[in-house]
C-alpha cells in the first residue's frame, strides 16, 4: 500500500449520513495537518455557507475528516463543496492547545515500565526522561470517549502491544503501543504497555468540553512524585484545581 499522500483528496461516502475526505492511507504529521486545516475550514463554512448548514459533527482522524450530516440536508451539494474545500486545505502548524500534564511513574502505576526499558536497553529513568522530552501530537480521539491517540513517540521507544491484553487497565493509565502514546479514560480491558498514571480525568461529562484533549492538541508529560500526584488528584476532586490549569503556552 502506498505511503504517499494522494495527489488530491478522495471523497468517500460513509453510508447516506456522512462523507469521509481521505488525504492518505498512512500516519504522517503533514497529512494530519491537512485534516485539521480542513476541519477548521468546515467549521468556518458551517457559519456562513448554506451547503454546510446540515452538518451535525466532524471527526478528524490521522488521515481523514469525516463530516456527518442530518437527514434533511442536501448531501450531494455538501459533498461537492467539501471536496473543493479539501483541495485548498494546506497543512499549517497546529493551532490546537498545548498541555503540560502531570504523570506519576511509580512502580504500581507502571507495571510495564521495567519490561519496556529492558526491551530497549535503557534504564526505567531513561525511558521516563525520553517520554517527558517528547511533544506528543493528538491525532484523534476515539476507541472510547476522551481516549487520545498521540503520535511522536521516539523510535527508540516504539514497542509492540502486549501479546496478551490485560482484562483490566486502571483508569488514567498512560500507555504506549507501536508508535503511539495514549491514556485510558476509564478502567477497561487493554493491550497497551502501561508506563504511568495521570491524576487528570480524560473525560468528565459535566465539564465543558467533556473531553480533556482534542485532535490537534500538543501534550507533554511532567513527572510528579506520588505525593504531588495525590495532591493534584485531591484538588481536582474538590474543585480547588481545574483541568485547564495544565494548559501551557507554546513551548519555546
Amino acid at each position, binding site marked *: *500500500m502506498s505511503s504517499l499522500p494522494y495527489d488530491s483528496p478522495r471523497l*468517500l*461516502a*460513509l*453510508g*447516506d*449520513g*456522512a462523507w*469521509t475526505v*481521505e488525504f492518505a*492511507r*498512512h*500516519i504522517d504529521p503533514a497529512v494530519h495537518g491537512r485534516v485539521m486545516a480542513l476541519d477548521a475550514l468546515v467549521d468556518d463554512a458551517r457559519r456562513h455557507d448554506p451547503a454546510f448548514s446540515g452538518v*451535525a*459533527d*466532524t*471527526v*478528524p*482522524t*490521522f*488521515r*481523514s475528516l*469525516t463530516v*456527518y450530516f442530518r*437527514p434533511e440536508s442536501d*448531501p*450531494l451539494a455538501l459533498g461537492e463543496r467539501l471536496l473543493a474545500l479539501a483541495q485548498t486545505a494546506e497543512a499549517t502548524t497546529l493551532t490546537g492547545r498545548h498541555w503540560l500534564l502531570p504523570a506519576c511513574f511509580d512502580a504500581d502505576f507502571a507495571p510495564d515500565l521495567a519490561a519496556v526499558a529492558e526491551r530497549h536497553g535503557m534504564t526505567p529513568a531513561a525511558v521516563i526522561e525520553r517520554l517527558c522530552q517528547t511533544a506528543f501530537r493528538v491525532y*484523534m*480521539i*476515539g*476507541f*472510547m*470517549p*476522551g*481516549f487520545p*491517540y498521540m503520535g511522536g513517540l521516539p523510535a527508540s521507544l516504539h514497542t509492540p502491544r502486549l501479546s496478551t491484553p490485560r482484562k483490566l487497565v486502571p483508569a488514567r493509565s498512560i500507555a504506549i503501543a507501536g508508535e503511539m502514546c495514549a491514556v485510558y479514560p*476509564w478502567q477497561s480491558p487493554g493491550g497497551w504497555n502501561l508506563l504511568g498514571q495521570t491524576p487528570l480525568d480524560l*473525560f468528565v*461529562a*459535566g465539564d465543558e*468540553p*467533556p*473531553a480533556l484533549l*482534542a*485532535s490537534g492538541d500538543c501534550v507533554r508529560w511532567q513527572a510528579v512524585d506520588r505525593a504531588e500526584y495525590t495532591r493534584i488528584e485531591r484538588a481536582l476532586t474538590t474543585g480547588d484545581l481545574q483541568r485547564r490549569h495544565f494548559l501551557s503556552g507554546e513551548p519555546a
Partner: protein
Amino acid sequence: MSGWLDVVDGGLGNAIQDAGRHGYRHMGVAVSGFLDPLFAACANALVGNAGDAAAIELRGLGPSLKVRQGPLRVALTGALSASILRHGGSRQVLEAWHSATLESGDILKCGPVDGGTAYLAVSGGIEVAPQLGSRATYQRAAIGGIDGRLLASGDALPCRRLARNEYREYRAEPWQHAEGPIRLIPGPQVDHFADGELERLLAAVYRVTRDSDRMGMRLDGPALTHRSPAHADIVSDAVTPGTLQVPGNGLPILLLADCQTVGGYPKIATVIRADLPRLAQCRTGDELRFAAVDLPGALALQRRETERLARWKNGIGSYLPAGYLDETALYTCNLIDGMVRAEPPIRD
C-alpha cells in the same frame, strides 16, 4: 404537571433512549439512541409525544413500573405485551400498538420481548436530565438515562401527568418495516477487498449470530477476502452505525447505535439510514441479504419512510377502553345499560 413512575423491577436489558447524542463524536462519544427510531416514533405518537421524546427501549425481559403520580398514558410497540394491575385490584392486558391510561397506584408489568427491540413510551417522555444534549443511555461512558445504566428497581422516572383522564385510548396497526434485502452504499474501503468480493457480499446470505448487542452484530456467512493480508487493517478512521466492517477473518461485523466512533478494519459498505431500524428487529439466526443503492436512491428511500410514518400516524384511531365509565353514554343513554362499556374497543 410532573408525573412519576417507580421502577419496581428493572427487568433485563431495558434502558432509556432518545434520538441520540449528536455533535460529540469527535470526542469519541457514540451516538447511541433508539436502535429502531420508527418503532420508537410509533410508541411516542400513541401517547401524543414528538417522535424523538425519550422512551424505554426493551431488549429482553420488560420492567415492572408503578405509577407514583398519575394519570399517565403509556403505549407499547414491538413484540411484547404487558399486564396492568389496577390499584383497585382488577387486571387488564395492554397489547402492543395500543395506549393505556394509568392512575396513581397502578402497576404496569411488561412481559418478555419476543425478539428484536420494543419500546414503552410515556406521556411527556421520560424527563430525566439530558447529558451532552441527550437522554440516551450510553453504558460504556456511564452517561445519559439513569447514571448511564440499565433500569433497576428503585429508579424513579419523571414524566408528565395528563391534565385529566380523558377515558380514551389510541391504537394503530403494527408498523411494517420494509421487506427484501437490506440496502447499503459500498465503501469507503471497498478497494481493500479482492475483485468480486462486493458482488459476493451482495449475492450471499448472512446469519445474525448470538454475538450481537447495541454496539453491533457479528454475521456468519461467506468470509470475504481482502486484497492482501495487509489490506485487512487500515489506519483507524471514523465509522458510523450501519457500517459493515470486515476484520482479518473475513466475517462482517455490522455496527449499531452504540458503536465506537473510529475503527481499524476496512469497511466494505454502510447500511443506509432508512434500513437501520430493520436491523433492530433482527433475531439470532435471522437471514440477511444485502443490495447496493446509490446516494440519491438512499435519500429517496429515507423520504419514503418519512412519508410512510406520517401516513401511519394519520391511521391512529381513538377508542373508548373496555371497563371504563363512558360519560357520554352515562348522560345520554339508558343509565343501567350504558354505564359500563365492556365490549371490545371500537374505532371511532
